[in-house]
């Protein structure tokens, strides 16, 4: 949204001073309250919806399909998102989808999706971002995290007699139990990755930036958090005319801040259980 020169100068001075002062009085590491719900869609294997108090909303549905595969260890995941109002090929959408897809593919062990030697699940993660005022990456990632936590895959019947591969080969087309309560959670032994975005203003780093804060930022850094550590990093543009020049010190500072924020967010998201 367009800011006047006065507003821009007020925001950029308050955010660059040490200690910084955010317009809503939050700390650098403080998130706004979210309204989250899981298990809301009956047609999906897992679903979640998060609403922010600035009107941002994201719904993610996870569906699993059975596909035939060779013996390779590929992880079959497809992430797609639809940001309402933007064309499907816009750079923002590409950034969101490719970041999440790469993060999930690199962290998900392929044995969790395997059914037999010939068959495997393919996971489709589809998100709709109904409205967003701030950068939608964090919103989409948190919703995807919750949806994957909620995802269940139907159990194979009959149970293979032995645990070795030979018996699994003899089963033809897999049959599944139609009792949904009997389904296995995808995330019993695996936690999904979490992608977080922080903005950098001068020497300060802020998480969960509002639209106005992002308008005066120098740029943003996103981190991919999985398994207790940061596994991926990327510098992103948070406004149209940013100069994107920041020092290595501020990048490493931002990574540390995002790591501790991600740890806390993961703990908070795991505590949300509404279904």
């Amino acid at each position: 949204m367009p800011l006047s020169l006065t507003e821009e100068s007020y925001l950029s001075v308050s955010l660059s001073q040490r200690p910084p002062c955010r317009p809503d009085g939050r700390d650098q590491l403080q998130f706004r309250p979210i309204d989250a719900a899981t298990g809301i869609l009956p047609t999906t294997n897992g679903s979640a919806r998060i609403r922010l108090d600035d009107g941002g909303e994201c719904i993610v549905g996870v569906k699993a399909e059975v596909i035939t595969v060779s013996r390779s260890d590929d992880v079959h995941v497809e992430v797609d998102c639809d940001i309402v109002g933007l064309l499907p090929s816009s750079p923002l959408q590409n950034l969101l989808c490719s970041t999440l897809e790469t993060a999930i593919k690199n962290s998900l062990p392929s044995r969790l999706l395997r059914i037999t030697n010939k068959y495997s699940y393919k996971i489709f993660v589809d998100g709709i971002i109904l409205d967003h005022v701030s950068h939608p990456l964090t919103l989409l990632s948190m919703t995807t995290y919750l949806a994957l936590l909620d995802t269940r895959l139907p159990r194979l019947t009959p149970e293979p007699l032995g645990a070795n591969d030979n018996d699994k080969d003899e089963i033809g087309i897999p049959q599944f139990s139609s009792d949904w309560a009997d389904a296995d959670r995808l995330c019993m032994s695996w936690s999904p990755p979490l992608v977080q975005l922080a903005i950098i203003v001068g020497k300060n780093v802020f998480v969960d930036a509002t639209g106005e804060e992002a308008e005066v930022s120098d740029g943003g850094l996103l981190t991919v958090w999985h398994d207790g550590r940061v596994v991926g990093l990327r510098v992103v543009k948070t406004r149209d005319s940013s100069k994107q020049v920041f020092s290595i010190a501020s990048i490493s500072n931002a990574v540390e801040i995002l790591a501790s924020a991600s740890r806390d967010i993961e703990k908070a998201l795991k505590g949300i259980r509404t279904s």
Partner: protein
Amino acid sequence: MASRIEIYSPEGLRLDGRRWNEVRHFRCAINTHPISSDGSSIIEQGNTKVICNVIGPAEPTLRSRVLPDRVSISVKLVVAPFSTIERRKRPQSDSRIQEMCSSIQHVFEDAVIAHLFPRSQIDVNLYVVAQDGGVLQACINATTLALIDAGVPMYDYVCACTAGMLDREVLLDLNRIEESAMPFLTMATIGGTRKVALLLLEMKVQFDRLESMMAAAMSGCHHIRDLMDNEVRKHGKSRLERGSL
């Protein structure tokens, strides 16, 4: 492997245990998105869930859309890839989606008191997040509620319902399995009157059976009108009590 699915048992029970003239579980909420839109609603009819956001009446964004004597309504429909049993991505240019958008637009162009807002526009955004039959009906009902929440003056509610014909039996408010098993029509009425705002039949049906389908659909629409009216009144009362009107 395929078991015979009995759409309508001899005792008069359908797949989900309903009788021929019972509508599915109807749940609606209005003013669900107070920040991102001027009027909003969420409708659940059985397993079909539709979210509607209305922005307007507002200054038109495109000169080409300006109508000199009335408000211009544009409808956008987003069907989520995970809304059906089979995951399928549907682009905005899909012909079914475009058709539904234009039907909804025509219905509401007449239902809204359009001459009160010349040279303005109303944007209706519909999101289908789960489908189990009766998508057009749910979209129309959701749009009515969202327009009411936005304060757009309308002549009356626009309520929609589907009715199908299985051999000689009429069934009301079909789900997905029933829709694929018999010819059905979607009807939208103006409130509790006998005026029909939309009638859509896409399969072949014998002409003499059409009237009973239409009569059943009309009574379904009137019933849904009462359900929606109850919710609107309840919402209005709670806002009055909270002092936020």
